[in-house]
């Protein structure tokens, strides 16, 4: 059951007015950026050696870590010739006074499912290549999103972390033995990468007062009642959408938000590319 949040952060109405008035003039509460520009974003790869792939994303003060683990398992009955991709999100209690220990709540589930769909629907990972024996043994790819510090816009940071960890991943060593079983040695990484066909980012646009802004920080999110998350691939196709929050949007706002998302997406793609380029500022060690 989904319940109207009744334990909300209290934002002083003066602060709310300040955020709205700044935005009406094309300015933001957190300093020098306009409504179209995300905060500083940095992607670091290979932050957890024991994971097959990992990444840490810092988007302003928001920090999300993603780990990719792989194992051999059975395919789903209706897709015997495809590997399995699973996304899971943990809102770790150390990340925010609002997070409580316990099983994932509706926000964590929504986040994981939006990231999952954005990767799945466009075929970002070629699951057809992750088959060892059709109908019997396939690779299962787990993406675990770990929210470490919540300063707003968990969608974009999480999507970026998931994508980066997938690009960072190397298949573990495995071999088929006589019994037909497959043994995986997670201690030994091969050079083989995951078959990534598309890069995907999400851009979140928040409606604050009467105006729209990309990449809301926590304070902006607290005074915004609706957000639109656009998942885009590198060619600008829309590969997922999620309206989130208690408010509503006019048609014109939905389309204007799309234009803003398309304009901001290259910032995230660039951060991803920089992390992947050897000797770049975020290159894996």
């Amino acid at each position, binding site marked *: *059951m*989904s*319940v*109207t949040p*009744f334990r909300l952060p209290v934002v002083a109405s003066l602060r709310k007015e300040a955020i709205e008035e700044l935005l009406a003039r094309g300015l933001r509460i957190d300093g020098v950026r306009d409504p179209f520009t995300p905060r500083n974003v940095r992607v670091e790869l290979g932050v957890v050696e024991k994971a097959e792939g990992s990444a840490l994303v810092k988007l302003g003060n928001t920090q999300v870590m993603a780990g990719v683990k792989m194992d051999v398992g059975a395919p789903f009955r*209706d897709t015997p010739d495809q590997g399995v991709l699973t996304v899971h999100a943990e809102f770790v209690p150390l990340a925010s006074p609002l997070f409580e220990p316990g099983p994932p709540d*509706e*926000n964590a*589930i*929504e986040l*994981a*499912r939006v990231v999952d*769909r954005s990767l799945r*629907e*466009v075929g970002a990972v070629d699951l057809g290549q992750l088959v060892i024996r059709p109908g019997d043994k396939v690779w299962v790819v787990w993406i675990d999103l770990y929210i470490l510090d919540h300063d707003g816009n968990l969608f974009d940071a999480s999507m970026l972390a998931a994508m980066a960890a997938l690009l960072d991943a190397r298949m573990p060593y495995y071999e088929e033995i006589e019994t037909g079983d497959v043994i995986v040695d997670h201690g030994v990484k091969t050079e083989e990468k995951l078959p990534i066909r598309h890069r995907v980012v999400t851009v979140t646009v928040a409606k604050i007062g009467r105006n729209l802004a990309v990449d809301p920080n926590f304070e902006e999110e607290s005074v915004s009642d609706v957000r*639109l998350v656009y998942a885009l*691939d590198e060619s*600008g*196709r*829309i*590969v*997922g*959408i*999620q*309206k*989130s*929050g*208690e*408010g*509503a*949007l*006019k*048609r014109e706002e*939905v*389309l204007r938000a*799309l234009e803003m998302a*398309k304009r901001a997406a290259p910032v995230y793609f660039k951060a991803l590319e920089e992390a992947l380029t050897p000797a770049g500022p975020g290159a894996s060690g």
Partner: protein
Amino acid sequence: MKVEGVKLIREDGLRHDGRRPEDLRPIRMEVGVLSNADGSALVEFGRTRVLAAVYGPREPPQKFMLLPDRAILRVRYHMAPFSTSDRKSPAPSRREIELSKVIREALEPIVLTKQFPRTAIDVFIEVLQADGGTRTTGVTAASLALADAGIPMKALVGGVAVGKVEGVLVLDIDEVEDSMGEADMPVAGAPDLGLITLLQLNGVMTEEEFQKALDMAWDAIRRIVDMEKEVLRWKYNVGGDSK
């Protein structure tokens, strides 16, 4: 569900069930179908059949579960175990948890919750048969059930999903089109306010396709909300049994 050998768009341009791309399925709406609930509705889009009930405004089950300046909404979207081809476990799935949130957020903008501080308004949605479009049918049923319960609302909401199959945008997709198609875009909103209250896209669309899909959905939602109004008028003005 995978159905092999089904052509989603036939050679004559019609869909697998004979509809044109812009056609809705046959729709049936009925209000006041349950005796205990304060308001209720049964809505069918083709073989998709969804029951919604509203209780409240009433005291929240736990005292701490309240807001001093408005009512809280509690919404549950749930599928009956027999509603699908393979039995669905009655335990709430991650999908149902997400959809409960998305549906609650589709209703929040239109319910005048400020009129009932410190109370809870409960909306329970049960999918009796799932054949595509269950969340948008759920929003439509919830809108009718809220109205039937006499809960003040800014406007009625309705919902429908637009899909893309074999490159063609099609209105009100059923399960076959959803599972074999390239995109599923559920939309809900209040046409009288010009507000979109639910929007998701599972799949891939170009910007042009997205705009066209949004317009198709919006035009259909107008018609769906008009039907809601007609059903409510019939129930409360013209010869309907009073509750």
